[in-house]
């Protein structure tokens, strides 16, 4: 840069909704969560919802985003972020409520809440980070772990006889009437990152339009727990994780159609009047 040069346009930087100074925190080398963090920050900026967003952060690595997002947030117990977000949204409908959780939170301990928010069509958004295992607790088998994956609690590899088959949350969500938007994305290439960002934005938009529940499942690399280098973990997402969990938009509706049968409405223990 020559003498007297003037910065005319800042072409790099961080989203407003991303904060670096709240508390020190770090991700493992090659972790994809920082990309989700950035994507969320960008979408919150683009939709201009920083002032009314409320994040409900689950337990696990996904909860680390609590300290990195400059939005109001609630610290939730393991698996409960979905129910907490639904509770907040009930009493504060104008807020943009979303929860972030991993596969342990949303597919194991908190799976019941997931099915029920979908059933009730609570207009909240769930950001689901699927890294095929428990990250923070140290790499135990999760409902989403790939068959054969060697985890600390399946040392010989995930055995379907004992621990079953990978759980496909997005496919389940797409079958439920109450969901407005369901998408599975990844962030392992720049092109996929852009798609992920778009999916998050659409999901928030569904909430803002009051359509219903929205879910974005993001496949994430977890190099330490997979025992792979960052680069190899990135390739593992491409070659293996996507093989089990195909990417794509599973559902996208602008209105959830339903009917009330007046004959049914006349039946029941409680009489009118």
């Amino acid at each position, binding site marked *: 840069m020559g003498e007297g040069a003037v910065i005319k346009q800042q072409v790099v930087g961080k989203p407003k909704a991303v904060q670096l100074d709240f508390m020190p925190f770090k991700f493992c080398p090659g972790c994809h969560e920082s990309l989700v963090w950035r994507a969320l920050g960008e979408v919150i900026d683009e939709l201009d919802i920083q*002032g009314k967003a*409320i994040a409900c952060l689950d337990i696990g690595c996904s909860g680390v985003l609590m300290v990195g997002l*400059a939005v*109001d947030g*609630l610290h939730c117990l393991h698996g409960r972020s979905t129910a907490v977000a639904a*509770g*907040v949204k009930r009493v*504060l409908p104008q807020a943009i409520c979303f929860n972030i959780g991993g596969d342990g939170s949303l597919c194991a301990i908190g799976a019941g809440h997931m099915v029920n928010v979908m059933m009730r069509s609570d207009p909240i958004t769930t950001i689901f980070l699927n890294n095929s295992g428990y990250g923070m607790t140290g790499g135990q088998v999760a409902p989403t772990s790939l068959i054969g994956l060697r985890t600390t609690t399946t040392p010989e590899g995930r055995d379907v006889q004992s621990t079953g088959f990978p759980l496909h949350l997005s496919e389940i969500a797409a079958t439920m009437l109450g969901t407005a938007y369901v998408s599975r994305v990844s962030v392992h290439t720049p092109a996929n990152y852009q798609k992920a960002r778009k999916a998050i934005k659409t999901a928030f938009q569904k909430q803002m339009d009051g359509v219903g529940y929205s879910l974005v499942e993001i496949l994430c690399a977890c190099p330490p727990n997979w025992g792979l280098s960052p680069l190899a973990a990135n390739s593992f997402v491409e070659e293996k994780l996507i093989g089990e969990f195909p990417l794509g938009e599973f559902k996208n509706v602008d209105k959830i159609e339903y009917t009330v049968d007046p004959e049914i409405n006349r039946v029941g223990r409680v009489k009118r009047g």
Partner: protein
Amino acid sequence: MADRRLLSGNEAIGWGAILGECKAFFGYPITPQSEILEFLATELPKVGGVFLQTEDEIAAVSMVYGSSMTGTRTMSATSSPGISLMQETVSLMAYLKVPSVIVDVCRFGPGSGMAQTSQTDYRQVTKGGGHGGYRCIVLAPSSSQECCDLVQLALWLADRYQMTVYVLTDATIGQSCELVDLKTRDFGALPDKDWVIRGLDARGGVRQGFHQHMWDYVGYHQDMNEKYREIAENEIKYEAYCADDAEVILVAYGYVSRMAKGAVDLVREEGLKVGLLRLITLWPFPTNTLRELGSRARRVLVVEHSSGLLVEDVECALQGKVPVHLLGIWGTHRRDSSGIIYPERIVEEIKQMESVA
């Protein structure tokens, strides 16, 4: 004229919630609590409140937490097994200092037990209930009127001290009907809720810390001890009935305390000097009052519909200076779960106790 109605304890709790300006209720059906749920499903939306029947008690209390964090007066109601399910979040709310009111219409336990009356949750609610060494205020109504009044007090205390307040009733109180004056109770001014989470816009862009005590757990526990001391100094409630000249003091709460009151009337007719300490707050516990009454009495009889839980606190308060007797669950009139302790059984126990003495 005052609005006076015949209400079950459960309906009166619902009315207490409405009069106490509770604006959100999350709950799950369980006998013998369901009438509270059904009442509020109809009545809460009429006053602009939010009602939701959730998938389980864990979701209910999670939503109570989320809703209360927005500054909304929120409560839930359940019965014993539901209280167990809620404990993890009650502990979280203790840590984050979140107000909430949880009604426990106690049923027979342990396990799934039976849906009839009992007082087997005493230890759980008075000692905190979940992990982490915290406390909750526990109010124990003994009539429909008190159900209505004490729920209002519970909502106020929850906001005043930013903590969970239990209202512990039982199937007998919950389902018995009595006349209730529906009155709004005023307990005084409350501190501003400057801790609410409603989005950054609502607070001028200042972000709320989520782990309030992450760097000072010692300070957290010291602060809480200070708060518990303050509560124990200011919020103890009890009724001393015919206790001034009593040589025998009965100690009881909930439906059993009403039976004990009836027993006092019966034995007083026969000239026996018996009185009753009816506990209204189970925590804080009226240790000093009991010690004072005990010092003038020859013996103390604890009556409770359990194997002997309250009796531990009574013995602790009396420090071995007065003999403490227990009429527990074996005092019920049937051996199955539908037995209750009648006044006449308490009278029998008093007479037997006195004849042996």
